[in-house]
């Protein structure tokens, strides 16, 4: 978690650095009066690295993935809840009361 967060921050920093480098590069091009055809190779590499770090952080930091398959262990419904709103009390518990001598104390 903490590692993922750190990597995410690092990735964002790298992206910012890439942006800064691009601006600086364009400023340099303006001075030398050349056409801007694309960012230099090291900036592209930086961008890709930052992208990978950010994706990795975004996938790990928010939490674990939950299964969406209906037959996975977390989703497979094995029994319905007791319909407790329709609970009725005249069942065999009436004839065989629970042997309990505990009382509610106040």
């Amino acid at each position, binding site marked *: 978690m903490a590692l993922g967060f750190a990597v995410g921050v690092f990735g964002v920093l790298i992206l910012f650095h890439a942006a800064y480098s691009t601006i600086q590069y364009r400023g340099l091009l303006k001075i030398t009066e050349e056409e801007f055809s694309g960012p230099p190779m090291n900036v592209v590499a930086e961008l890709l690295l930052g992208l990978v770090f950010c994706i990795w952080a975004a996938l790990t930091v928010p939490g674990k993935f939950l299964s969406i398959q209906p037959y996975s262990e977390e989703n497979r*419904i*094995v029994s319905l809840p007791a319909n*407790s709103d329709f*609970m009725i009390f005249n069942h065999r518990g009436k004839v065989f009361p629970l042997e309990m001598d505990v009382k509610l104390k106040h």
Partner: protein
Amino acid sequence: MVSKTEETQLSNLETQVDNGGGGAWEYLSLVRKLKVRRSDRVLKHGLSILNDPKKRSSLGPDEWTLYEQVAVAAMDCQSLDVAKDCIKVLQKKFPESKRVGRLEGMLLEAKGAWTEAEKAYSSLLEDNPLDQVIHKRRVAMAKAQGNVSVAIEWLNKYLEIFMADHDSWRELAEIYVSLQMYKQAAFCYEELILSQPMVPLYHLAYADVLYTLGGLENLQNAKKYYASTIDLTGGKNTRALFGICLCSSAIGQIAKGRNKDDKESPELQSLAATALEREYKQKASDKLSLLTAALKGLKVSS
């Protein structure tokens, strides 16, 4: 809805609590969340928490929920004194509460004082005519007294107003099944499948009803719904696998007389039979011979 992981968690907690390993409050919370009926255990462990002032006060506002839970469990176990004491405590804390009034009505029900309970519920309904739980309690009361037809009538009236209440549809379906009114039960299960299409148990129950109704068309539909149950459970529902085998065999018998040769998907039944055999081999290998004999009798195994 209780999923497989939750079921395992519940049974683990249950053994832990029963053997005195602590975690009673977690267990009671889980029971409440999953809405399972474990009244004896809830009564025992709930009382042990409630009788311990330190544990009780550490719950904070959840204390009152626990009082309610224990009261209902006590009624279910016919420990009416405990239920009465719990309700008294709740009434002191929340005078004029509808929820406590409902508990009192349920206590009257548990005592068997039907007319008084009815009176209590109707006075509560006067204040709030759309209280769903009280309507349901009246249906349950009619059922408890044995007036199943009255219960059906009220439940139908209730469902006309609250059509999205699937618990009530399920209750109605179960009542119809108990009366062997399968056509009506099938309608209720259709409603349930429409409202919650991803619950395999409704598909399974619908298929059971259709299979019981019989007839070629119903059997074919039952087979489809058993297949959809298998689809939703990943083949881990033994009843659905058996259902496929039984349906195929019954369809085979009907179709034999009519010598139609539109035999549909013979793979399905043999696959179901294989899956059953595999499961038995894994979990109950001593009963495998019984299974193979039964499947041979149904003429589904290859």
